[in-house]
């Protein structure tokens, strides 16, 4: 084993296991490989800076900011009211309401844990009040949050688009059908589980007196937002990056002028959250560029392709192996970090098997959705268990049927590429 592999296979995992910030681990590995291969270290900082000098990255802090402004601006309540009105009269349907509300909020926020926090904060106490077991309430909310990264706009998809050199607009379109399909599967499972739980669940009596049309009209500004973002991108009015800043301006106008709930303090909090999370993610992206450059110069992806070539020639088997690996890694690594670290290695591998990188992007996202729900990291589980005030372990057990459903969804996306490829191809042909 040469020095480069020693650094990648021993030093890098060691730094991660020690709990160092991921950007520090990536940076140290990049610097170490540069050092042992006699590459000038002064180029390392240039790589870090170049890593940030990609226009598409500007969309990520903007979408995070837009999601935060909408959450603080009171848009969530209106979305939930519509689904409660549509399904709430059926006993056992609040899980279904939660999944659909999460699906819609996901089309605004782009973040998994953000979706759990926004929808779960209203739906978990409501479900407990109507007799649903607290573990069920927490698990269904945590599961709904996974849709946040799949349904566009999705921050992991933006990162993947940059790494794989795939159109972000195409990726957003590709995520749409699998996202809705996954939401429907999860909603069915949520309803069946509620009915089989044995708990006595009452119908929702807090439904609004107004007709559903009036509720839809009241929520028109919230409902129009996904149409505004995606419609603007696909009609060519703006690019995905410009869509993200238009979403910020739209959210600001609606929160201040229509909902009138956004105070100066909550706006500052929204900016602080965006700065903290955006900064934490972007410095990982910056340092990963150094990491990716060094492993590319050392031809590591080509070695991985060769190694896999010796194992199997089947594209499906390779995809299944990658998914198994991603599920394992995703249990202890944050989603975007996993995409950033593994993307430069996996994309050349899947391309060598003739797999469309657009299709692989969606498989990657569906797979890491599962990681959102698996301990020990499982961020969505932590958020949901805190809101429901129950032990993390109990939610981790209650989530298993949903994890199984997501695995089924992952397999459907793997075996039927047209599910993800149909919409982007249709949109491209219409242009």
């Amino acid at each position, binding site marked *: 084993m040469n020095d480069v592999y020693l650094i990648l296979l021993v030093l890098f995992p060691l730094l*991660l296991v020690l709990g160092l910030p991921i950007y520090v681990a990536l940076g140290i590995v990049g610097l170490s490989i540069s050092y042992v291969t006699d590459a000038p270290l002064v180029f390392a*900082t*240039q790589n870090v800076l170049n890593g940030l000098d990609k226009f598409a990255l*500007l969309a990520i802090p*903007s979408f995070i*900011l837009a999601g935060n402004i909408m959450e603080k601006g009171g848009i969530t309540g209106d979305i939930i009211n519509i689904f409660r009105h549509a399904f709430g009269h059926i006993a056992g349907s609040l899980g279904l309401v939660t999944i659909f509300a999460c699906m819609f909020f996901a089309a605004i926020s782009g973040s998994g844990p953000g979706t759990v926090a926004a929808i779960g904060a209203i739906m978990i106490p409501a479900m407990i009040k109507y007799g649903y077991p607290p573990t069920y309430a927490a698990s269904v909310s945590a599961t709904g949050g996974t849709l946040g990264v799949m349904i566009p706009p999705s921050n992991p998809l933006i990162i993947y688009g940059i790494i794989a050199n795939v159109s972000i607009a195409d990726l957003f379109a590709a995520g749409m059908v699998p996202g809705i399909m996954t939401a429907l599967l999860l909603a069915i499972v949520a309803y069946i589980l509620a009915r089989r739980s044995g708990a006595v669940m009452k119908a929702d009596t807090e439904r609004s007196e107004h007709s559903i049309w009036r509720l839809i009209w009241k929520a028109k500004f919230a409902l129009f937002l996904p149409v505004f973002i995606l419609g603007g991108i696909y009609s060519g009015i703006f690019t995905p990056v410009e869509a993200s800043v238009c979403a910020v*301006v739209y959210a600001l106008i609606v929160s201040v002028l229509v909902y009138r709930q956004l105070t100066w303090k909550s706006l500052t909090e929204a900016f602080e959250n965006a700065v903290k999370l955006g900064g934490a993610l972007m410095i990982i992206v910056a340092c990963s560029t150094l990491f990716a450059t060094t492993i590319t110069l050392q031809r590591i992806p080509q070695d991985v392709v060769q190694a896999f070539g010796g194992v199997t020639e089947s594209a499906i088997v390779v995809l299944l192996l990658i998914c198994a690996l991603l599920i394992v890694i995703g249990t202890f690594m944050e989603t975007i970090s996993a995409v950033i670290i593994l993307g430069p290695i996996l994309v050349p591998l899947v391309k060598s098997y003739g797999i469309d990188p657009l299709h692989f992007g969606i498989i990657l996202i569906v797979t890491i959705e599962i990681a959102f729900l698996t301990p*020990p990291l499982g961020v969505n589980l932590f958020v949901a268990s805190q809101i429901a005030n129950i032990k993390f372990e109990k939610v981790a057990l209650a989530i298993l049927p949903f994890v199984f459903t997501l695995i089924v969804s992952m397999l459907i996306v793997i075996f039927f590429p047209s599910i993800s490829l149909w919409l982007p191809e249709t949109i491209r042909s219409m242009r």
Partner: protein
Amino acid sequence: MRTILSKFLLGIAMFGLALMVASLFLQVISREFRWAVDWTEELGRFAFISMVFVATAYGTMKRSHLSVTVFSDLMILRFGPRPIHILHTAITLGFAGLMIYFSAQNFVDGLRYPNISPAIGFNQNILFLPMCIGFIIIFLLHLRDLSTLILKGSLDE
């Protein structure tokens, strides 16, 4: 002192983010109205890059950086927090030191051999300055943490 620095860093990062959003929004508006504004993309990009390094320093202050804590939490249970935190701090200190040295070198070289942006006419090598300043703050924060760990034995939250 810490509170003042924290508010200062947050203020600058928020300004950078707001500037980025404003300039890109102006880009959309100007295109629709056919105004000749060609500097918005560059301004947005430069504001974003500067914001990231300031936000990284702010994140260090708030201990909000992403890391894999599952195993280190187990090690803390086994060995106590002090040795693990000293190890983290010392390694990050070394990394920040290297980044300061090389980004400063790039900044100085960049002043001699400028890389001028086409629209604004801005020397893009100046962007090594916010990188250098960000890592200087990270270095100083970790230096303070290291001295606290050695003298007091634990970090304040």
